[in-house]
């Protein structure tokens, strides 16, 4: 081993051992960095907050209207988009998002309305802003809206991100 009371003429081997040890450590570090949790806890906090903003917003839009037909503001936006010729529910939902003034805090959104087909495919029928390209770290929350007569299921997709 490295230190003994007698003279050691193979001292250079210790450096090679150290290099081997370093390679081992870096290997372990690389493995751990790939497989372990990545990023700081603050990131998960930010993600949670974005997710809550989105879920709260869609939940509020989907609160049942007073009356007897059990529909919501969100229902009528989807219904207008699907059955109206010039109605854009995605644009109207985005306008409601502006009322939260969260844009001023750097939270931006993209709204899409997608048709859920019986085969499980999603077809976007309306979106706003049409050409917005959310970054990779954006959060998407969804809410299903069921139209009746005939029964059709649509998904309102709200993608949020910090700029």
């Amino acid at each position, binding site marked *: 081993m490295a230190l003994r009371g007698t003279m050691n003429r193979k001292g250079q081997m210790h450096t090679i051992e*150290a290099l081997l040890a370093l390679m081992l450590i870096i290997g372990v570090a690389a493995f751990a960095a790939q497989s372990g949790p990545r990023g700081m806890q603050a990131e998960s*906090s930010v993600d949670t907050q974005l997710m809550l903003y989105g879920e709260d917003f869609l939940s509020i839009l989907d609160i049942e209207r007073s009356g007897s037909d059990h529909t919501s503001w969100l229902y009528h936006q989807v219904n207008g988009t699907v059955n109206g010729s010039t109605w854009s529910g995605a644009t109207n939902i985005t306008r409601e998002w502006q009322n939260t003034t969260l844009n001023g805090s750097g939270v931006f959104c993209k709204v899409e309305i997608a048709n859920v087909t019986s085969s499980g495919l999603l077809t976007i029928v309306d979106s706003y802003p049409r050409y917005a390209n959310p970054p990779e770290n954006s959060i998407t929350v969804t809410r299903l809206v069921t139209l009746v007569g005939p029964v059709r299921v649509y998904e309102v997709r709200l993608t949020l991100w910090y700029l």
Partner: protein
Amino acid sequence: MDRGQVCVDFLIAITIIAFGIVILISQIPMLFAPMQTVATDIQPVAYRTSMILVEDGGIYEMGGNITSKWEDPEGNGWSYDQNKNLTNYHDNVKRIGLAMSAPAGFSSEDIIPNKLSRDKINATRDWSNDTVNQNKIRDKLGLFVTYNGIPLTYQYNISLRDFNDNLLQIDSSPVLQIGDSIPGTDARYANATRVTIEKIDRIVAIDNPTALNCKKIGDVQCAKLVVCIWR
């Protein structure tokens, strides 16, 4: 000095290994997270508290029956100051939630998530102003727990704000601002620079928002419920 090179070699080896260890630690930011049981659990507690308040109406239990109408369990139209004199009222309130109870025709536990009841907001505020019983609110929100035999007390500050972050007011007093003073905003805590505070904003609709500075979203008047938790 025949053995001198051994010491230098050893020094170099130790230095290289020390660098390796530093790189290892810096590569794994959460390496010591399992040992930080106190600091890392604040975010889930803040999340849970916000969920209890916004997506739950609370529980009042008496004689095996439960209802979410803890703010007026007997349906007398009473305020907190009248209800607090009911037998075992504070014990019967198992959990405080602010979500509005569902209208007649639904089960007594059913609520409308994200739509806060003005009566529950007022009852929570009045309870907080009741100096004899205000410390019980912490229990009802799950902010006093025992973990491995060790009592954990979480500090909290809960308020209703408009979208410009100003407190919602009525008659020049806050509609809802309960709990402890947030460190850094109070002169008593001016030196408390190392407190980690978890803040969660919830967008909420408010039932009967007359005279409040709310904003209309969809069909309803809305504001923010701000939950701050620290230890």
